[in-house]
């Protein structure tokens, strides 16, 4: 088929051609970027935290009228209250294991610092940034972490201190990511490190496979898997406990937790959010990501629909306008399929022009988003896939009007002008 007559015909419909091409270009630009955003969000949401998330919940509470001082007496009183809570939780029939903790992955409350290989290093000169988790000998088991080297904490390792006390522990367990950063040879167990520029040595006794930091913010992205677990019960006038329920008993355990704690000691505040399953923590942490992906998905679908509808509308109009010419061509010997192909080719041509402009717009939009928001560069694959999609969309949209055109009978040519 020759393109020349087609281009000549399109010249007579400049406005329509420009509109369809523009629409395809804009659709391509937005859909590519939207799908890219969806992909990124989905990837983020699906990152495993390293925990066994099922049957896990968190209890956060605050005592009222508890001592607030940093003196040894107050600390020991607060520790006794904490141990009382732990014992009560552990005695629950639906509970498998309990650990005190300062935070959990995705909770966005964190205590962060740096780990150094040398003593008394300046904080900024640390060898790796890390987040700190504080728990007891049940921490690894309760959270369902996988120990890949060394040993777990035992009861003898566990100490307690006031939460403002900055002294460093004798032993820690670190994540594999952190261990590999500090000791690339993979022999971290038994090595000495220094926390937060301290002069006190700390020994790494174990390595867990994976444990995410509490913060999901982009600022923590550089050390998202560097976590250090200290065998320390932190004492303050508040506390939180990670609880693993027996399989299938999560709801039952959660329901009895609040009354139980009030029975242990009524002078405390537990609100609606105080007993929270890890599934809820996860959905809260990623609410914006999931919502964003859903919004983008809906917008993409509607956008493709609107663009297809626009193409159908304008092409139908052209078919109506060229009714007689089509009849003439048919009378002069063109087959039905020639007419069909004519309109399909025409659409391919317009959509092709639109796609070329759209590729430029898509990349431009991506650059703009990169500049203003924390967005990565879009891989070329997305743009190419987008081009294929809009070309197919054009073909799909043009099919029905083109078939109508091909059904115009040759006799139309002979009818009165």
């Amino acid at each position, binding site marked *: 088929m020759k393109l020349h007559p087609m281009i000549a015909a399109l010249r007579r419909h400049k406005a329509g051609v420009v509109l369809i091409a523009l629409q395809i270009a804009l659709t391509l630009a937005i859909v590519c970027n939207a799908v890219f955003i969806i992909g990124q969000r989905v990837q983020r949401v699906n990152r495993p935290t390293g925990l066994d998330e099922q049957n896990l919940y968190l209890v956060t509470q605050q005592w009222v*009228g508890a001592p607030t001082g940093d003196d040894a007496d107050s600390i020991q009183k607060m520790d006794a209250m904490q141990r009382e809570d732990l014992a009560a939780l552990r005695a629950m029939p639906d509970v498998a294991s309990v650990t005190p903790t300062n935070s959990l992955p995705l909770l966005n409350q964190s205590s962060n610092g740096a780990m150094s290989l040398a003593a008394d290093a300046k*904080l900024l000169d640390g060898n790796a940034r890390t987040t700190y988790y504080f728990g007891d000998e049940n921490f690894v088991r309760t959270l369902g972490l996988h120990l890949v080297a060394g040993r777990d904490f035992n009861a003898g390792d566990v100490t307690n201190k006031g939460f403002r006390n900055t002294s460093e522990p004798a032993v820690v367990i670190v994540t594999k990511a952190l261990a590999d950063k500090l000791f690339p040879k993979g022999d971290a167990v038994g090595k000495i490190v220094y926390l937060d520029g301290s002069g006190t040595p700390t020994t790494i006794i174990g390595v867990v496979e994976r444990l995410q930091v509490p913060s999901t913010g982009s600022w923590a992205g550089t050390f998202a898997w560097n976590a250090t677990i200290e065998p320390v019960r932190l004492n303050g006038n508040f506390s939180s406990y990670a609880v693993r329920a027996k399989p299938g008993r999560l709801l039952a355990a959660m329901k009895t937790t609040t009354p139980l704690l009030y029975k242990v000691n009524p002078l405390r505040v537990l609100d609606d959010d105080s007993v929270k399953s890890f599934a809820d923590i996860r959905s809260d942490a990623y609410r*914006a990501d999931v919502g964003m992906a859903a919004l983008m998905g809906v917008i993409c679908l509607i956008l493709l629909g*609107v663009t297809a509808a626009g193409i159908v*509308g304008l092409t139908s*109009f052209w078919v109506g306008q060229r009714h007689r010419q089509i009849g003439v061509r048919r009378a002069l010997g063109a087959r039905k399929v020639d007419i069909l192909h004519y309109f399909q080719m025409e659409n391919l041509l317009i959509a092709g022009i639109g796609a070329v402009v759209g590729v430029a717009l898509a990349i431009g939009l991506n650059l703009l988003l990169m500049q203003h928001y924390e967005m990565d560069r879009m891989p070329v694959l997305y743009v190419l896939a987008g081009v294929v999609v809009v070309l197919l969309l054009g073909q799909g949209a043009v099919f029905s009007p083109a078939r109508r055109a091909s059904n115009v009978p040759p006799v139309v040519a002979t009818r009165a002008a």
Partner: protein
Amino acid sequence: MFAYYFQLGLRSLRRNPALTALMVMAIGFGVAASMTTYSVFRAVSGNPIPDKSAQLFVPKVDNWGPQQNLKDNEPPDALDYVDAMALLRAHAAKRQTMLYQVMMSVMPGGDRELPLNANGYAVGSDFFAMFEVPFRYGGGWSAQDDDARAADVVISGELNRKVFAGENSVGRTINLGGHDYRVIGVTSHWNPQPRFYDLFDNNYFAGEPDIYMPFTRAMDLKMYPVGRNSCRGKLSYTTWEGFTQSNCVWISPWVELDSPAEVASYRNFLTNYAAEQQQAGRFNWAPNVRLRDVVQWLDYYQVVPPESSISLMVALGFFLICLVNTIGLLLAKFMRRAGEIGVRRALGATRSEIYAQYLIEAGTVGLAGGVLGLLLTALGVSGVGILFQPEIARLAQVDFSLMGLTLIVAIAATVLAAFYPAWRAAHVQPAWQLKAG
């Protein structure tokens, strides 16, 4: 004539239902998507204190030094204890307050068996006047109470309802964290969004605070901050005294400055203060201070969540495509009636009359699209909760201004989109149409 053209427009909507439905839906969806995201954007990017945002300033003093500062040698976002006390004592502004977050609990009493949480702020006496806090009963405390470290407290209407059943509780006693306080004022609902006065703690869209207590009193009680506390270097403090002498920043300062001259002189004061500290050997770097008003402070903190502005951009792009689509469909719709236009023109209608007719027709399409858009916007706003945290979703509301805006945008955009198709319609050659038709 307008009414007649409007009727014609309605009639033409019915004549070509598929094409009309396409246009109305394109406009409806486009407007709804833009308006829904705009409602969120408006809620989060609004000025929380429009009448005073140019008089309230956050001073910053660099107590960390260029080695440990934030990006681009930006000083820390709050003050440490030493600088906060020095600025308070100097009193270089007409009004000033230091503030930080405190958390206490109300002891059980009356018919309440369980304690309540009472979160709030330790503030100076100027706080209430500076931020225009509305009172239902009583008022704030005085500067003398600041100096006397009085056990006074201002409570929220909500806490007053829980503890005192909503009665006028001024003068009564409330036990907070084991200490008795005298209620001196009860606020009406006051919770500016975003919470501009405490961006440091990142609770931009938190619920209303329950209590406000004198900053000086909180110092006496050695109340550690429950909000953010940001430190540099090796930490070695073990006591409150050690903490207050550390480089940890946790106090948000505010000053009220009424004129450019006052701003300039306060800036000088800050620079001089930092220079004195350098001379005294406390800082070994040149003065590095900042003074930002409310709008600049919100900007600096990038309070508007990225979800909100990205989705606004995407929605605007979406709307643009819908408009391009509408231009195309209107063109098809109008040009189909070229014969009809030819007849009207031949019978003496002027071009401007053709213009008027078709623009009004487009307006009716826009109106229909706007009505659909209104319904979809209402639906969209109620679904905002899936995209944003509940704290933000709560702020997005359908009100009269949003409804009006939706209709106006839909009609104006459609009429704008109709200019080119209407121009083409007006330039139909009557003679040619009559001959060809």
